């Protein structure tokens, strides 16, 4: 098992291997996430019972919760890839980190946006300085910082490393931020908005949510893979294996570049 993992890890470092392997995955990821979302949305919107307090407005959790989870794990993936790049100098890891950053930020925005839409009918306001909202907002700021830094540094290698260092510093900071915000919130407005604490969910509501979480994870994986493949194509464009790829070779022959 360990041997196999080590070999997998070394292979993942090869852009060519990654490109060829993920080429076979794309269609399956797209299909699975598409079907999963369709099923999840239909079950969530049509078949799940309405919440006894919030009515139908609770149904936005089927987008809100998966987006929020992925925004958080996206940062983790970005920081871990960054660490792998810093330690083992694996180019692929840096490209993955760069591919994840805007996606994670987008999911973070989706979570904040849907949260605001949800907040209006349930809390009567678009935004409250609730601990969870605030920490998501700070997560968005952290994403923005990493993206801005990656973009500002011209040297390719240095920009990857700088982004990795910053995302690692952020990673160490996230628990501290989370803790301090929770602490701050309970200090200033104790127990005003208890609606966020749902009773244990009924399976009819929970199952569509779980399906949506898995489907959104698959979508995220698909998007990360697509973006990483773009990075590979761009950075390895001079390599012969890229130019021999059927989709590239056809274009070169046709005179389109």
């Amino acid at each position, binding site marked *: 098992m360990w041997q196999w993992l080590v070999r997998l890890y070394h292979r993942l470092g090869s852009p060519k291997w990654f490109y060829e392997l993920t080429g076979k995955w794309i269609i399956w990821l797209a299909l699975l996430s598409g079907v999963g979302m369709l099923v999840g949305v239909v079950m969530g919107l049509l078949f799940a019972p309405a919440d006894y307090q919030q009515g139908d407005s609770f149904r936005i959790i089927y987008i809100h919760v998966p987006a929020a989870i992925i925004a958080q794990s996206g940062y983790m993936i970005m920081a871990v890839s960054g660490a792998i790049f*810093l330690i083992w100098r694996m180019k692929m890891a840096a490209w993955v980190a760069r591919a994840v950053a805007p996606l994670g930020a987008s999911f973070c925005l989706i979570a904040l946006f849907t949260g605001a839409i949800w907040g209006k009918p349930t809390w009567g306001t678009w935004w409250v300085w609730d601990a969870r909202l605030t920490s998501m907002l*700070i997560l968005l*700021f*952290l994403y*923005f*910082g990493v993206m*801005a*830094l990656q973009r*500002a*540094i011209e*040297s390719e*290698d*240095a920009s990857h*490393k*700088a982004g990795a*260092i*910053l995302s*690692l*510093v*952020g990673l*160490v*900071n996230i628990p*501290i*931020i989370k*803790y*301090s*915000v929770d*602490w*701050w919130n309970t*200090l200033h407005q104790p127990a005003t908005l208890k609606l966020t604490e749902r009773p244990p969910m009924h399976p009819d509501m929970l199952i569509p949510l779980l399906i949506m979480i898995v489907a959104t994870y698959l979508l995220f994986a698909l998007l990360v893979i697509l973006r990483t493949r773009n990075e590979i194509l761009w950075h390895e464009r001079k390599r012969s294996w890229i130019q021999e790829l059927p989709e590239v070779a056809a274009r070169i022959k046709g005179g389109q570049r």
Partner: protein
Amino acid sequence: MSLVRATVRRDLLLAARNPGEWLNPLMFFLMVAAMFPLAVDPDPAFLAKIAGGIIWVAALLATLLSLDSLYKADVEDGTLEQWLASGESLYMLALAKALVHWLCSGLPLTLMSPVLALMMALPDDAYGALVLSLLIATPILSLLGSVGAALTAGVRSGGLLLSLLILPLYIPVLIFAASAVYHASIGMSFNSQLGFLGAMLALAMCLTPFAAAAALRLNLSR
């Protein structure tokens, strides 16, 4: 070790010869804080409630202003390369630079804060909390900021970028420090907040120089 001492000495000397560099952020600190009563409400009872927070936000912004130049000159004139060639650890350099930055920004801010607090009608009980929280927490600002300064040292117009990178990381410090002042002003104990700030300082002192050293190396490979 003597190299560390020499660097601290040189940077302090540079600051002494060029007082604008550390005086300007101090004046900025004063002016930003003075904007709030003008813009919001000069009523002392109201000011007393927000004084701690305003002084802390102003201190954050003033620190950011002075961070930009922390490594710029050393990267541009090759001092950094000399340091690396000497074999002395960059960790120590990062620590020394943060120390000098704190001596030139955090410490004067702390010393000046009671004057501002007076103008902001901060309750008498809160003076101790304000000065203590600034004393403990401004070094954290310098340490965290030195990572950002090292990352952006080679970037043109890195000042704004630096603020984008560092401000989110300052949030825990802001929360605990402002709450210490607030708690003191309503006559409650603020030991736990100071304890947290102290823990953060210890953590920052151990970890941030690693990140800053790694970031400094990037400026050499450029």
